[in-house]
């Protein structure tokens, strides 16, 4: 699940530059995860597939509400959960949809992209250990910058700068690889 988070960050950075293929890959990466999320919660696979599509459309039409400085998973999870609640409401079913950890939605997947994972490990290996540690703590383990900074010998301010630079260089090296 660590890899997927960094893959997503890179794909978002690329889509921000107008890269349609990266954006398509991001949506394609979400589809099986959303499918797993909805299939587990709905009996009818056709309903689940409808919700997958509705959620993908919502991700697209509401993409300006995503703040790229924040993790992606809680945002997608918020949308998927809203669509699920909306689905039950339309059916007239009163059902409680419990609030789960947002990371769940990335963990739930039928398929695992092995090739890109290898790519990503190669990319991550290029980062200095200290930066990589900070990035993993903040982006993957969900620590706040204030919590993670001292673990890697940063002040809070320096950690913010380092994190920003790390993500930037990461997406730059992805971009370079794509060319």
């Amino acid at each position: 699940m660590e890899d997927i988070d960094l893959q997503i960050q890179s794909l978002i950075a690329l889509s921000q530059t107008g890269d349609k293929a990266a954006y398509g890959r991001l949506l394609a990466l979400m589809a099986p995860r959303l499918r797993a999320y909805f299939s587990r919660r709905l009996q009818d696979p056709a309903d689940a597939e409808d919700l997958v599509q509705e959620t993908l459309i919502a991700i697209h039409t509401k993409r300006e509400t995503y703040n790229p400085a924040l993790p992606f998973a809680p945002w997608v999870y918020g949308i998927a959960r809203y669509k699920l609640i909306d689905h039950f409401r339309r059916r007239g079913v009163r059902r409680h949809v419990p609030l789960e950890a947002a990371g769940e939605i990335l963990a739930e997947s039928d398929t695992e992209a092995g090739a890109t994972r290898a790519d990503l490990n190669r990319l991550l290996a290029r980062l200095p250990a200290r930066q990589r540690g900070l990035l993993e703590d903040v982006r993957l383990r969900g620590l706040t910058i204030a919590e993670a900074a001292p673990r890697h010998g940063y002040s809070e301010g320096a950690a913010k700068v380092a994190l920003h630079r790390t993500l930037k260089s990461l997406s730059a090296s992805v971009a370079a690889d794509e060319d």
Partner: protein
Amino acid sequence: MKTEDLIAGLALEPGFPGPRQLERKLILWSGVGALMAALLTLLVLGPRPDMDQIAGVASFLGKAGYTLALAGAGLWLARRLGQPGARAKGPLLALSLLLVGGLIATVVELARIPAGERAGQLMGHSAMICPLAILGLGLLALCPAMIVARRLAPVRPAAAGAAIGLLAGGLSATAYGLHCAETAVSFLVIWYGLGVLATAALGAAIGARVLRW
């Protein structure tokens, strides 16, 4: 439609512009509404008579500071509530501080004056008109702001609508302050506050219908 085809279709317009753009639009359009409310206040109701004196300007600015802070809390809240997965703790705390702080200031002000004068101080000369005027003027900012807010993705549409109403109400209360010559803190907190809350309630009712997605 197959999901793969859907993705291919969606991926024709990539990009995550970030919420800044949306926020700017919200400020711009509620600002246009506020400007119209200010114009309407000045042209129809007329400026407060002491606007040419330092004390009058100071009183206006003080009241404007409070009502603009309420509008700011509304904007902040709307931004958070319109973003799936975001927490609204910060803006809710700011809003509670403004409301509780206002109520404390009201109690302190009223406690300082003789009991017989308290009702007069609290009611001023326009207690009945003030909330209605703010609600009415608030519509001018509420409508454009609500249209922009339809681009948000609120998980709780009514709450997001209330936040938009708080923004609009805070702005219209500021505009109404151009006319209203009441200077008491208690008047501001209670009657302006009531007008702003009424606008927020209207925003909640509208939001529950139009902010669904």
